[in-house]
Structures are given as C-alpha cells and as structure tokens.
C-alpha cells in the first residue's frame, strides 16, 4: 500500500476508536471498540487499491454512524451497569 494510503487508513482507524470510546453504553462502547479493531486487523493485508478505497468509504460511513449514535446515547443516558466499577 502507498505510504499516503496507509497513513489515511491509520488515521481513520484512530478516529473510529476515538469516537467509539465515547459511547455512554458499556455494551455498545465495548462492542464498537472490539469490532473496529477486529475489522481493521482482518483487513490488514489487503493490497488492491479499489478494495482499499471501498473499505475506506465504508469506514467513513461507519465513523459518521458511530458519532450519531454516540450523540443519541448521550441524550438518553442512563445509569452505569455493575461491572463499570
């Protein structure tokens, strides 16, 4: 992968993790962090630029979705669950 493409992927990855950390819900937060990490890990050897571009677009859309859902979660926040210390 070209260096600039790689940098973009890493930047998207960081943005998605950062957005996911903001979910008020313990279950949604842990799922998003885990799923984003596992998805990027599963795709780490993809070379074909078209596939990379498609995945990046999907990632951007998912990032926007996470941000929307985090905002909604904050609007309707409830108590923490017992394992959240």
């Amino acid at each position: 992968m070209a260096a600039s493409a790689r940098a973009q992927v890493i930047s998207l990855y960081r943005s998605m993790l950062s957005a996911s950390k903001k979910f008020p819900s313990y279950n949604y937060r842990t799922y998003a962090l885990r799923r984003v990490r596992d998805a990027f890990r599963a795709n780490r050897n993809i070379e074909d630029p078209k596939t990379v571009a498609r995945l990046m677009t999907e990632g951007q859309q998912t990032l926007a979705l996470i941000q929307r859902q985090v905002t909604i979660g904050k609007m309707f926040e409830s108590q923490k669950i017992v394992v959240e210390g």
Partner: protein
Amino acid sequence: QGTSAKHELEKDEPRPLYMDFQATTPMDPRVLDAMLPYQVNYYGNPHSRTHAYGWESESAMETARKQQVADLIGADPREIIFTSGATESNNMAIKGVARFYQAKKRHVITTQTEHKCVLDSCRVLESEGFSITYLPVQTNGLLDLELLEASIRPDTSLLSVMTINNEIGVRQPIEEIGQICRSKGVFFHTDAAQAVGKIPLNVTDCKIDLMSISGHKIYGPKGVGALYVRRRPRVRMEPIQNGGGQERGLRSGTVPTPLAVGLGAACSIAQHEMEYDHNRVSMLANRLVQKIMAGLPDVIMNGDPVRRYPGCVNLSFAYVEGESLLMALKDVALSSGSACTSASLEPSYVLRAIGADEDLAHSSIRFGIGRFTTEEEVDYTAEKCIHQVSRLREMSPLWEMVQEGIDLKSIKWTQH
C-alpha cells in the same frame, strides 16, 4: 414468580448485566440509525401511491424485504410477509394453513417443546375439530425422526417444529425434517425466531415451507417480524387479519416502514456478522460453563451439549431453588425459563418434556449470551453464580443430608 422481589431501579443504582438474550436483545446501533430517518422525516405510508412520501416509504420497505430479509434465508422477496412478530407469524402459519386445507386434511403435528403461541394455536384448532399430535422429545431435547415420520397421516396438512429452542438452546435436525415432510406432501413450518441471523438457514436447502422470524431476537426493533411463505410449491393460507389486501392479502394493515427498515437492517447486519458473532458467542458460552462447572459440583446442562445454539445455556443447580438463586443474582439479568411462561409458578414445560427431574426443573437458570456480551460480564456472572449457589447450598438442609451420604430419594416425608 419472584414478584415480591420486583422493584424498579433507584436513580443512582447501577444497572444489572444483561444476560437474557433469548428474552429480547438490545437494538444494534446500526439498526436504530437505519430506522430514525423514517421516524422523523420519511413518515409516508408505504401503500400511498400518489406522492413522494409514499414512494420513498415503499422503496425502503421493499429494500428491507428483498435485499435483507429474503436474502438472509435464501427466499424470494415475494415470499416475505411483514408481521407484528413471530407470535403473529406462528398464528398465521398454523391456523391459516390448517384452515385452508381443512376440507380434506384435519391433522396437524407439532412438538411438546414449542413456544406457547404455537401450542395455543394448536389448541384453538383442536376446538375447531382438528386432530393434533404433540410429539414428545428425547431427554436431550431432540425429536425422534422415526417417530415423527410414523406420526404423519394421509390427512396431515402441516408439521410445525422450532429450529432452535428458546429455553434450552437445542437445535432440531431441520434439514432431515424438511426432507421427510417434502417426501410425504406435508407442509413444514418452523419457528426460527431464535435461529434466523445466528446460524445459516436456507429455506430451499432445508425444504422449509413456512418460517417465522422475530425482529427483537436479532438486535432489531420490537413489534415487527416476518413470515416466509413458499411460492413454489405453493402454500395457501387463510388470512387471520383482513382488510385492504396488503402483503399479498395475507396480512392486511399498513406495513410499519420504520420497523420493517429496522428488521431489514438487523437481518443484513446479521448476515454480515454471523460468523464473527457465532465464534465469539461460542467462546463466551464455553468460558461461562467451564468456570461454573469448575467452581461447583452437581450442575447439569439441560439439552443436547452439541446440537445446540451456544448462546443459550440452561443449567440446573441441584439442591438450590431457581427463584432464590435468581433473587440472589440480582446484579445479573437472567431468567429461569421462558419469559412467556414465567407468570405461573410451574416449572417449565420444556424441562418437563425432556424428562428433567422435578427438583432439577425448579433449579434451572437460563443464561443468554449475545453480540454485545463481554468477557468481563461472563466472568462476573460465573463468580457470582458460584458464590451464591454455594451460599444457598450451605443453608440447605437437603444439601447437608446429601453431604452426609443420604440418598434423598429414599426419604419418606411425613405430614405434620
């Protein structure tokens, strides 16, 4: 059951862990995201033919039907009818098909472990003069296929068997059952509410003629489901709900676009995530069971250990009363059987059907693991369970007697 312990949470009281995924599931955020536009701006009636509000709503409904629900189960979109949930779908399938063919066929077969809505629909048919066979299951929860085949009569119109049981997680041999039904000219209906989106299901491979789908079991919204009705060979049914002829005349009523969109999104996500979720749920379920069994003696798993959906774990803790254990585990949201039957104090009829000892049936807890369950939650649940079961056993005179080597079954209890 346990109503004396019922109390809504105080303002700052921490919420329990959710480990009851068979009762219902939280909506996946991706599902809510797909639904919201149709709850805010795109509010048209999908059957309105004359304006953009109707057209865009219809388009969303048809996308859900075709690309999402139908695709998940290998069906044609014309074979998917939106309903209010699996209970309605089950009612439609059983009553609708039986009544349509009643001139020549008046026999229906089902199992003793079906969901209440299936059993109750069959009881209604009985009162209409139909003859129903309620097949027993073996101690592992599975049907005896020879017995099934032998119970089919020339006047049998329908066989209804659920794919995955909601109480004990057992998975019936759907492919073999479909084969038997097809060879005998009997329609095969399956309540797949707990199976759709969790295990691969193809209506052609399994020769399924009717299938009930539930939105809120697969991280979709509550209040929506679907019924798959085969077109080739054609399955005819009498509609239960009459009106404007929507959904091929089989289920009149405005299709709730936001809910249909939610069901579609849930199915689409499930198809994408099926392998990932299944691997993870299996791992977590093994972790839970290993920990509990390592920390406690006399724990029995109900239902076949292999032919099951891993996320539904039903355990009996000998010498401990199920309701007491649930109350003691107030930090974890669990159940002792089906939510639908928990109003009565009777032990689950599913456990009775698998021949569980009366005492063990009263000592059972169902652990539900799903897409959003974490290792932390599983470990917490296992530890609390071990601690509370041990504590309750310490207080139990029966346990004391067992420790002393007394065979409880040999005791003659007398009245005072």
